[in-house]
């Protein structure tokens, strides 16, 4: 169901005046540039997709539009008049309204109260309840929503709460609605309802900015797409006639022609094939709407890359294998034995290690020292008579600090004072001193400077060469192609392709991410073909 696009959009032909226009938007966060001269124009009555990989600047741009952030440079016009929103409230009253993924409403109040929050109809200084319920009912009737205005918001399903949030925007008089991943927690049937509502708003002339990672949705509801990458505007195109492969190339910054000629780089790590069960075999993993059917194997001594666009289920897969999140369905086997970790502790006991993609939130303990962070997962093996052995700690800490080249003033320095690359090395070391057999690394080089990046990648190869099985999640195509012996590509929570050494190239990965089919090599994609 690909090209079921609505063709009523004004995108291509009529040159209407944009309802919202941003020009040369620059935003820095403590010196780091997040948006670098971005232009954006939104026509009335269009649904405009905003896409980009991690760090592209989508959410920053949206926050500037809706007054949550203030731009450093650039200009913004609403209906041709320059505007300068200092607060979200200012943007709202001007008609630019964000509907967030986490809906910012009051769960314990009624639907109608939420619709009229902070602008309740009054009579003699009191809330005019009758009018509030009546107007809400009229509003819902207009929008074709079947929701009881007197119901407590918290009792509604997610989809309905979202509709309420959108209806609130409409009743405020939204000219521009910004929807950030509106379908991420919706069931398929609810998505249909949402799309129906969007079609209505569009017909009424409301412009919609639509952020999503799901290509099927983009092609189903959006008229045009703006692609951002690394804080820069890359392209704005009508979606009709734009091939998925081209869109992915724009997002990732790869030229299609160049890719085709480049071919595959020789993988560094060897794949050690042997008889008997693989180190890890997972089959049919399912979890909520994020994981729909993921299967993969990891052998000892190989680096298996796990690729896919943002939201494809890479991190979810990694976390599920580590026992950090529970599964709805699927089986896992470690060295041929059933493996059902109910918490990370179980996985660690089975010699599985996991380095999270979010170093700050899920990796370092900021106040503790390098030594304390490094030995955190290995404490049981360092403890004698109930006391953590100083001598054993020192041996391990010294060894890893030397081997990984960890730059710190001493092992007693607080880890939060180290650079990202050095923090990451400490975290890798934290796991290596538990002597894992399966090492799961999620975005091992994200946010790390070039030098440390190469070191960490080399280290991962070294580990595989020593016989560890490595599952490497990465959004960096080069890293996947150069660092993996095989790459499993996920799309919408399913693995759609497995690229072996012969067929491994950035082009092949992009192709699989975009279309969901591989230029096959070893196995047919598991699950149904897209």
């Amino acid at each position, binding site marked *: 169901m690909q090209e079921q696009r609505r063709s009523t959009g004004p995108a291509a032909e009529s040159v209407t005046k944009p309802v919202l226009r941003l020009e040369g938007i620059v935003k820095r966060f403590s010196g780091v540039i997040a948006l670098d001269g971005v232009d954006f124009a939104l026509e009335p009555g269009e649904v405009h997709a905003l896409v980009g990989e991690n760090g592209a600047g989508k959410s920053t741009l949206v926050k500037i539009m809706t007054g949550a952030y203030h731009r450093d440079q650039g200009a913004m016009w609403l209906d041709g008049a320059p505007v300068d929103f200092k607060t979200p409230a200012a943007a709202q009253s001007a008609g630019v309204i964000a509907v967030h993924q986490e809906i910012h409403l009051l769960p314990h109040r009624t639907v109608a109260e939420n619709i009229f929050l902070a602008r309740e109809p009054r009579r003699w200084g009191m809330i005019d309840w009758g009018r509030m319920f009546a107007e809400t009912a009229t509003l819902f009737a207009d929008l074709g929503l079947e929701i009881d205005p007197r119901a407590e918001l918290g009792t509604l399903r997610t989809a309905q709460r979202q509709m309420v949030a959108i209806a609130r925007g409409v009743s405020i008089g939204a000219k521009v609605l910004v929807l950030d991943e509106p379908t991420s927690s919706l069931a398929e049937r609810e998505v249909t309802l949402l799309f129906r509502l969007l079609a209505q708003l569009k017909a009424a002339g409301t412009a919609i900015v639509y952020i999503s990672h799901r290509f099927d949705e983009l092609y189903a509801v959006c008229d045009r797409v703006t692609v951002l990458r690394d804080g820069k505007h890359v392209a704005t195109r009508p979606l009709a006639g734009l091939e998925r492969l081209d869109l992915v190339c724009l997002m990732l910054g790869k030229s299609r022609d160049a890719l085709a000629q480049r071919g595959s780089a020789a993988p560094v790590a060897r794949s050690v094939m042997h008889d008997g069960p693989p180190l890890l075999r997972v089959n049919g993993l399912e979890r909520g709407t994020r994981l729909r059917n993921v299967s993969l194997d990891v052998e000892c001594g190989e680096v298996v890359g796990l690729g896919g666009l943002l939201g494809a289920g890479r991190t979810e897969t990694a976390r599920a294998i*580590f026992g*950090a999140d529970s599964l709805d369905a699927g089986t896992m086997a470690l060295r041929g034995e059933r493996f059902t970790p109910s*918490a*990370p*502790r179980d996985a*660690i*006991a089975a010699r599985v290690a*996991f380095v*999270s993609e979010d170093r700050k*939130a*899920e*990796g*370092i*303990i*900021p*106040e*503790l020292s390098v030594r*304390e962070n490094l*030995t*955190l*997962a290995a*404490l*049981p093996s360092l*403890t004698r008579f*109930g*006391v*953590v052995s*100083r001598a054993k700690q*020192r041996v391990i800490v010294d060894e890893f600090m030397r081997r990984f080249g960890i730059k710190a*003033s*001493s*092992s*007693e*320095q*607080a880890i939060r*004072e180290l650079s990202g690359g050095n923090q990451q090395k400490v975290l890798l070391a*934290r796991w290596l001193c538990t002597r894992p057999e399966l090492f799961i690394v999620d975005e091992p080089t994200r946010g790390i400077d070039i030098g440390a990046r190469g070191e960490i990648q080399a280290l991962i190869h070294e580990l595989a060469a020593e016989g560890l099985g490595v599952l490497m999640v990465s959004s960096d195509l080069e890293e996947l192609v150069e660092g993996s012996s095989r790459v499993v590509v996920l799309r919408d929570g399913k693995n759609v392709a497995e690229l072996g050494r012969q067929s491994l190239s950035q082009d092949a990965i992009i192709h699989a991410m975009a279309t969901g089919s591989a230029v096959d090599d070893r196995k047919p994609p598991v699950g149904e073909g897209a």
Partner: protein
Amino acid sequence: MALTPLASSPAVIASERASAARRHPSPVLGAVIALIVLVVVNAIFTPNFATASNAWNILWQVSTVVMVAVGMTFVIATGGIDLSVGSVMAIAGAVAAVQLGHGVAIALGFALLCAAAVGALNGTLVARDGIQPIVVTLATLIAGRGLAQVLSNDGQLVPIHNVGFETFGRGHVGPVPAPVVIALVVVLVAAFVLRATPFGRHVLAVGGNRAASRLAGIPVRRTLIVVYVVSGVLAGLAGILEASRIGASDAAKIGLNIELDAIAATVVGGTALTGGRATIFGTVVGALVMQVIATSFNMLLVPYAWSLVLKAAIILVAVYFQRPRRV
């Protein structure tokens, strides 16, 4: 004391200290300076302050608060708080007094067991059910005080006539009051546990970053439960000493408002209320600062109320210097 940082060489320690001090001045250092200033000023201006008997008196008075504050430090290190300590003291005192007929050992054991049970309840509600620590321990603060009074014949004073039991609160080891000896042992053991055992590391890790701790395989729930049990047991011990010192179990009064003193001592000593950073040594210094203020104001015949105002000011100053620096 056995509390010097365990780093490799003095030079490294010095450079570490220097760099840390530039970034944010050590809160423990602040408390130590405050204590020194208070002692020196009082030694000069307060008659009879600089005497051995007064020193022992201050230490004797501060010993129960120190014990409770040490437990509180563990709880606060995990990012929690334990308001129920005063009520736990009252429960332990009441249980001990009522059970003394069965012998000192049984009375003590039973009292500490009850204190541990309250701690386990607190910890379970916090760790397993995810209820906010302040709410959980507020509930046990209220219920515990009631329970203590029920246990002691509806809030009557239960007099204690047992020489052995009274030794805990009133006895001496040489010139040193027994409660001071017990508090010192508690402090040394606690400092060692926090610094050198896996449990101590777990406490700081859970308080510093719970998500990361879970992914590192730390038993987060168990650590939280144990921390509240430790706080309960130490409060129970303090309650027993208090009852022994008074020579009676006064369920309505024992440990009343001590949670505030314990939290104040912890905070002034430099343990972060947000969790992840804790110092037992600092807590002891914090408790001493508070006690010196109270004692010296008393000796100078300044109304008690003024000492409360100065204490409050010191707490605010301590928290002000500890506030997060980054935007």
